[in-house]
Structures are given as structure tokens and as C-alpha cells.
């Protein structure tokens, strides 16, 4: 149904700062861009009932999730005048302090990227079937729920 190919948004493990830096560098040949906005989700070492989160193990209903990421992409381009956008989400184990979500929106004008990045991130949180198992330092766990 989608007119462009659905991409695989998932990456195994944490998203490295090198990967993000390289992604920024690749946009320097696009000289119509005036503003980039980048959102990064980082795993927090939350303390719950005296136990500290050591990592989140992400799983997903991958086929549906990639379709949803694609739909978010299409809707975002329809709504906002972006030059380009990229989404990467981790699967598997991401330790506290590591990055699990990388959203990158670029446009000629700044006001658009502020609106676009918030729209994309909220849509990901609401629509994409990704599940997070918060693993405590004592190896017990609980399931994360987005608010």
C-alpha cells in the first residue's frame, strides 16, 4: 500500500555516538538545510523499590513496527516541509546511559524542525509496537510502559 519501500528502522543493541556523528556529517552536502533537530532517547538507571535499572531489553512486533515507522514517516513529510528525516530504534539489550532511539529531522527553516521532531517522537511512543523489559541490577525485571 505504501508508495515507498518500508525500511528497517531497528538496530541491534545501543545506538553509538559515532553513528550519530557520522549521520550528521552525511547531511553537510545538503546545502538547502538550515536546521537540524535530533532527539535521542537514553536508558535511565531508574530506582524502583530500591532496585536500579541496569538495562532495557527491547523486543518488537517487527513487521508491524516497521510499517508503523513508515506510516509515521509518510505522515510527517505530508505535514511538515522537511528535507529529510531518519529514525533508528534499538532492539535487544541497551544499558543504562546508552541510546535506544535516534530521530533526526532536517529542514531549511528551524520552526518546522521543532514541531516535526515532537510529532515524530510522540507518534513513535504511541503507535509503534515496541516492548521494553527493564532489567534491574539483581536480574529481576519489570515491563516498561510509555506515559
Amino acid at each position, binding site marked *: 500500500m505504501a508508495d515507498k519501500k518500508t525500511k528497517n528502522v531497528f538496530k541491534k543493541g545501543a545506538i553509538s555516538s559515532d553513528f550519530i556523528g557520522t549521520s550528521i556529517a552525511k547531511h553537510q552536502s545538503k546545502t538547502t538545510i538550515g536546521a537540524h533537530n535530533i532527539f535521542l*532517547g537514553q536508558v535511565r538507571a531508574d530506582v524502583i523499590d530500591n532496585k536500579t535499572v541496569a538495562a*532495557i531489553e*527491547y*523486543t*518488537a*512486533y517487527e*513487521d*508491524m*513496527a516497521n*510499517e508503523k515507522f513508515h506510516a509515521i514517516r509518510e505522515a510527517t513529510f505530508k505535514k511538515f516541509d522537511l528535507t529529510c528525516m531518519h529514525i533508528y*530504534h534499538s532492539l535487544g539489550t541497551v544499558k543504562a546511559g546508552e541510546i*535506544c*532511539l535516534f530521530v533526526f529531522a532536517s529542514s531549511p527553516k528551524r520552526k518546522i524542525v521543532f514541531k516535526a521532531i515532537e510529532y515524530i*517522537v510522540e507518534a*513513535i*511512543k*504511541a*503507535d*509503534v*509496537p*515496541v*516492548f*521494553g*523489559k527493564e532489567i534491574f541490577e539483581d536480574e529481576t525485571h519489570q*515491563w*516498561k*510502559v*510509555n506515559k
Partner: protein
Amino acid sequence: MTINVKYFGLIAEITTCEKERILFTKKNVSEFLELLYLKYPSLKNKDFQVAQNQELVSQDALISGHELALLPPFAGG
């Protein structure tokens, strides 16, 4: 008919499997879930949504697809 059912996160912990094929004669989602609750009683108080062929469906949707998925609350990002 037979349908592929997928379980995720907390739901997969309860079912102790990630997917299975289930034979059934019921027609809509809530009737199908009643069948599942017989097999996995502790699913009953859990919070989840149902997707049919990768789209969320309501409890009274007819089951027509080849794949159902039970999705606990999302935690992406």
C-alpha cells in the same frame, strides 16, 4: 479455521511462547479471546491490544486475517 497468534513482552511471559497456531470456530476478537482465556487464565486481567494483520482492531472486529498479535503496552523510545 487456523490462525497464527503472536505474543509479545509480558503476554509472551504468560503464554510461555512467542507464537502458536490455534484452531477455532469463533468469529470475532472477543470470542477468540474467551477461548484464549481458557488456555491462559492469567491473561484475563492483563492490559493488551489486539492487532490483526498488523493493524489494531477492536473487540468486535471479525477475524478474517491470517495473523493475530496480542500487544502489551508500548514502550518504544
